[in-house]
């Protein structure tokens, strides 16, 4: 096997020291040292590979994620838990994220699990049917936050914002061959990024990954679906509870993302059931703030925050947002998603750039961020359902 090691960069803080290279398949690998971390985590981020959600295959990526995460022998989680580790998987609009984690001393088991995860899955009608039953149950247990996110994205971006959870009827038509084809398109070459977050010995981790992991090849160049924000709108849903506002932002480290994130954190802190929903992406995206416990208090809280504005509020919110992102980027279980998505989208340093922006954010910028959640600048959703 031919490898091209590249020393990407040496950083002193969040993000830690990085050792990275590109495999000849095109897959990109980073080993990040997070000193003092209690666990090691391998984050496999799989881009959409030109397979963004569409009505015709709505949810195929989610279904595939369920099937792949079990591993080819359907026992990957058990193997990892036997050494005190684990595995989680999530599907987002711009990437799927598989996280293998455990004690650093179990390096061999963790890397072997990654190698298994990258093997072609064994798919059958029976397995797909069984997993669809699970997804039917998952659909009924989705909470208001998750449903709100799905609806707001569609309000903002239409077909380009389809909920990655998927449509059960469409998923029901997926054949093993279709999913195999999807796997081949997604788990290939430049569509794959591995971010290994380890407490120490980065060189040993790099060697172990090189030795044991075989990266699927692929020369497919992903075409990226256009995502353009639509006019602002308001909607009501009886499927969920709460009140939500979504501010459109462009780029992971853009000024508007930093402003909106800090403002959303400030606003959520004033609410009893305050939540901020944001998935890292360098593409047009949404920062969502929600009041999950009432369908009346968000608008009031937003107005009060503006009317009673003090520069000290903005300064505190900026500090908080910076600290929040720092803690994400220092955490081996979370950092990989940020760096992985940024890398698969072509800008590996975007999370660090966002952190710098947040650190330098002025109080006035936080106020501008707050204004981004106004009724004339954001997508609004209220729910008075279950």
């Amino acid at each position, binding site marked *: 096997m031919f490898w091209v090691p590249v020393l990407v960069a040496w950083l002193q803080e969040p993000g830690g020291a990085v050792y990275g290279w590109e495999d000849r398949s095109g897959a990109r690998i980073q080993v990040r040292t997070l000193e*003092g*971390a*209690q*666990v090691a985590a391998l984050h496999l981020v799989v881009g959409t590979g030109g397979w963004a959600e569409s009505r015709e295959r709505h949810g195929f990526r989610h279904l595939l994620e369920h099937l792949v995460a*079990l591993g080819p022998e*359907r*026992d990957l*989680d*058990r193997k990892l*838990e*036997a*050494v*005190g*580790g*684990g*595995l*989680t998987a999530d599907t987002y609009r711009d990437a799927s994220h598989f*996280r293998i*984690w*455990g*004690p650093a001393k179990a390096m061999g088991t963790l890397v072997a699990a990654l190698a298994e995860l990258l093997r072609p899955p064994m798919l059958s009608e029976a397995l797909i*049917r*069984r*997993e*669809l*039953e*699970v*997804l*039917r*149950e*998952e*659909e*009924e*247990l989705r*909470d*208001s936050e998750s449903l709100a996110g799905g609806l707001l994205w569609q309000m903002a971006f239409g077909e380009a914002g389809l909920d990655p959870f998927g449509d059960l009827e469409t998923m029901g038509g997926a054949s093993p061959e279709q999913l195999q084809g999807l796997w081949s398109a997604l788990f290939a070459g430049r569509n794959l990024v591995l971010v290994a977050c380890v407490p120490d010995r980065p060189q040993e981790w790099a060697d172990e990954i090189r030795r044991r992991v075989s990266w699927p090849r692929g020369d497919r160049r992903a075409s990226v679906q256009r995502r353009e924000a639509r006019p602002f709108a308001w909607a009501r849903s009886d499927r969920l*509870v*709460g009140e939500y506002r979504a501010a459109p932002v462009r780029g992971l480290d853009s000024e508007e993302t930093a402003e909106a994130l800090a403002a959303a954190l400030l606003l959520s*802190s004033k609410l*009893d*059931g305050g939540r901020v929903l944001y998935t890292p992406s360098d593409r047009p995206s949404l920062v969502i703030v929600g009041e*999950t*416990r*009432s*369908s*009346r208090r968000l608008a009031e809280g937003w107005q009060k925050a503006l009317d009673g504005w003090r520069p000290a509020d903005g300064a*505190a919110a900026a*500090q*908080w947002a910076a*600290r*929040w992102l*720092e*803690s994400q980027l220092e955490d081996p*279980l*979370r950092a990989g998603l940020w760096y992985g998505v940024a890398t698969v989208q072509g800008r590996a340093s975007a999370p660090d750039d966002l952190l710098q922006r947040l650190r330098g954010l002025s109080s006035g910028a936080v106020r501008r961020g707050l204004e981004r959640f106004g009724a004339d600048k954001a997508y609004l959703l209220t729910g008075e359902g*279950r």
Partner: protein
Amino acid sequence: MIAAWTLFVLSTGLRLVELAAPEQKAVCVAAAVRLPELSPKGVAAARALVEALREGSAAYSRQRWLGEGALVGVLPKVELTDDALLIRLATAPGRHKVVASFLADLLRSPALSTEAVGGAIQRAREDHRSLWERAVDPRVAQWESLTRRDVARLAAWLLRPDRVGVAISGPFQPGEGRRALEVRLDDWKTSARPAEPPGLLGAGRSELPVGSSRFFRWTAPWTDLSDRGMGRVWLVASALGAGKGASLFRTWRVEDGFSYRQDCRLEGTQAGVALRVLLGKAHGLESVPDGWRRLLAAVGAWTEADRLRALAVMGRQGPVPYRDGALALTGFDPTLLEPVDQAALAAYWALKTGRPLSVEAWLAEARATPLEEMKALALDLLSKAQSEDSTSSSNSG
């Protein structure tokens, strides 16, 4: 190695535990307040009290709390469990005196003005919890006749040093954390014990929610809170429900495609703790009894690999990423909690048992439990478990 908490009992009877943890990135304080069994009206009063406490104390507003938490990216929390009210705060290293002042002031001088309590009742009453949250805590609350005075009476009755345990942990010298709390709580003398708040205590009622999914709950009580008792029941809970290799996930989700979400929790109760299995299910409800039988069969087939997997899960370090924040006191991998949640568990354990939390001792006992004993205990607990579902209601007592 899991660090050991040290217990101190103040002259007022208040129990205080401290953990000097040099590697910790935040100072954490927590309080546990012992709850009696609450009537439906008492549940409503307790939920309103939680809302009121979230607003802070007379001297330290909610915004000041949030500002402290923001220094380390941790939001303050006030929550109810079946047998406790829990308060959790965190701040930056070096600020243990500040956060100790917050906690002491909240316990001693909560902001319970007529207006504040009125607002708290309204917020608590309007609160929309998710279906799963309602299944985790299905106690019925009766709001109709609840008054501000009821909430104030409950607060006066609960917030007394002999009903409270507090904990502090962080990167300070041994004794520093204890002193920070002690000087602010040692002279916490309350007047003669107030009368029991009328109508708030007594038998409660639980109703599992009905929505797009139905919920099923099996509860097995456990009263042996010794290290050996806790080690054994934690081992069983872990083999059943901790992780995706556990029997619940493996049997119901991977092998049967029967459910998406299922949980095994250890939860504090008036009598001790309870092992609870919780299932959410939307389709094929008639198959639940069969599912339960398949689970029992899977437990009966446990091998040494299942025991070792459970022990490995129990012994792992660092917060687990898929906890969903549904801590209770339970979920119950105590080694996996965030430091602020560990502090809450330590405060609770000191209050409940008069002993400092010793997860190491529980682990040692769990490791000494052979497979056959683990299996027999699990089958015994599950076969005796009381079942409830969304279509029935029962007394929680």
